[in-house]
């Protein structure tokens, strides 16, 4: 073979770019391949919400760790990443959801994450466009937002500055047991190890991998500065995100630095196409207007879709694959890939180099699916 790398990362989304930045910074001879461009797939359909989530202990550990890495990185980020420390406002519609807000408050506080409970009046003061009558909410102070495609580009640039190489429009056909890859044109590139960071497309390179495509819709509005101030999410979001069978929508809105607002969210399995599904889009916007009635008077400028990489246990796959110890994974981040990209990159580099990891990596090991009990989810 004419050339050889320590590590080849397939997929230049934000997860692949974060892995490349960490590997290259650690001195590994790194190559990144993508059949498209940097951050053009799932990354371009992510809201860019940097959020600590408590679906499970392992999810909180990775999201909180990653959020800390984003905070450490913020002064280095280029302006186009549009990092904004706006916090998250979890909205409780009724008393049952307020109880959930208080449970969440306790959980975060016990783990030293800064949060504060708002009653109905506090919520209205924080976000005057929310409808009256909501029970209250929970503000998570250190959550933030970024513009994902530029964040991926920033991380890739960091990798390149540390000597990594990137090839766009380079489609990979197979990951080879010896660590190299075979390209779509049949040529081969040698490496000590490969990493499948192709998100929802990961099973194409690893048939049988328990990763499913979960479609989402996004709407962006025209510029209305000050309409909302936080990333606002309904606490009912958890019901939507957890529902694994049915199509679901939840209210989730984000202020951008331009004054535009990004509106989500929808979740659909078995919807492979990129087309806009008007029925679920209508449901999604109707849900948003239940919380922000005056939203209906504003103009949307664009609607688009993307696919998340969903795993059966809602945790990503980071580390050696089951089949070969030279073929690794950094995939399955579902709706949290922008947040957890930094934690994933750091964990992957630590594992590759045999360094101690700052949080336990075992919960994300692909080997957890070895017994086949959750194969295909």
């Amino acid at each position, binding site marked *: 073979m004419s050339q050889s790398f320590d590590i080849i990362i397939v997929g230049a989304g934000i997860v692949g770019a974060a892995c490349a930045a960490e590997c290259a910074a650690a001195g590994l001879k790194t190559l990144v391949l993508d059949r498209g461009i940097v951050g053009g797939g799932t990354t371009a359909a992510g809201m860019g919400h940097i959020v600590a989530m408590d679906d499970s202990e392992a999810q909180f550990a990775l999201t909180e760790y990653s959020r800390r890495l984003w905070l450490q990185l913020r002064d280095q980020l280029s302006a186009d990443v549009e990092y904004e420390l706006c916090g998250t406002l979890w909205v409780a519609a009724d008393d049952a959801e307020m109880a959930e807000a208080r449970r969440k408050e306790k959980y975060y506080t016990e783990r030293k994450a800064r949060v504060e409970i708002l009653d109905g009046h506090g919520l209205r003061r924080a976000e005057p466009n929310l409808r009256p009558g909501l029970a209250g909410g929970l503000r998570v102070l250190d959550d933030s937002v970024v513009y994902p495609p530029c964040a991926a580009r920033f991380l890739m640039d960091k990798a390149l500055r540390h000597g990594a190489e990137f090839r766009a429009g380079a489609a990979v056909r197979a990951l080879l047991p010896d660590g190299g890859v075979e390209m779509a044109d049949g040529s081969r590139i040698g490496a000590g190890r490969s990493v499948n960071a192709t998100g929802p497309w990961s099973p194409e390179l690893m048939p049988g991998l328990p990763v499913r495509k979960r479609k989402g819709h996004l709407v962006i509005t*025209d*510029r*209305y500065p000050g309409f909302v101030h936080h990333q606002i999410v309904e606490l009912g979001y958890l019901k939507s995100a957890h529902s694994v069978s049915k199509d679901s929508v939840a209210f989730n809105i984000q202020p951008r630095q*331009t004054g535009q607002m990004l509106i989500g969210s929808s979740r659909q399995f078995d919807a492979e196409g990129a087309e806009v599904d008007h029925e679920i889009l209508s449901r999604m916007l109707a849900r948003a207007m239940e919380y922000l009635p005056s939203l209906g*008077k*504003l*103009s949307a*400028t664009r609607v688009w879709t993307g696919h998340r990489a969903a795993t059966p246990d809602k945790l990503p796959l980071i580390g050696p694959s089951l089949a070969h110890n030279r073929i690794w994974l950094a995939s399955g981040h579902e709706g949290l890939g922008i947040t957890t990209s930094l934690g994933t990159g750091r964990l992957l580099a630590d594992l590759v180099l045999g360094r101690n990891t700052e949080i336990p990596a075992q919960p994300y090991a692909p080997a957890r699916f070895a017994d086949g009990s959750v194969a295909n989810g």
Partner: protein
Amino acid sequence: MADQIQLRVNGKTVSVTAGTVVAAAVAQAGQTRFRRSVQGEARGPLCGMGICMECRVTINGQAHGRSCQTLCQEAMEVRTDE
């Protein structure tokens, strides 16, 4: 004679025939710059059929109204260049 409607464009009273679109009233008020682009460039009506989005103005406090698709109403407050 058709009904006349009085509205205000940047505080200036304009009288138009019922059925007139806001873009025409803005032009009648002598405004050629309807809004500024993100980079601060002047913008005004181009397509006249609601597609190009260049003629947006603030109507009764609501930003980004398409002046070519909105009919004038009595006492309407229109602001350009915001």
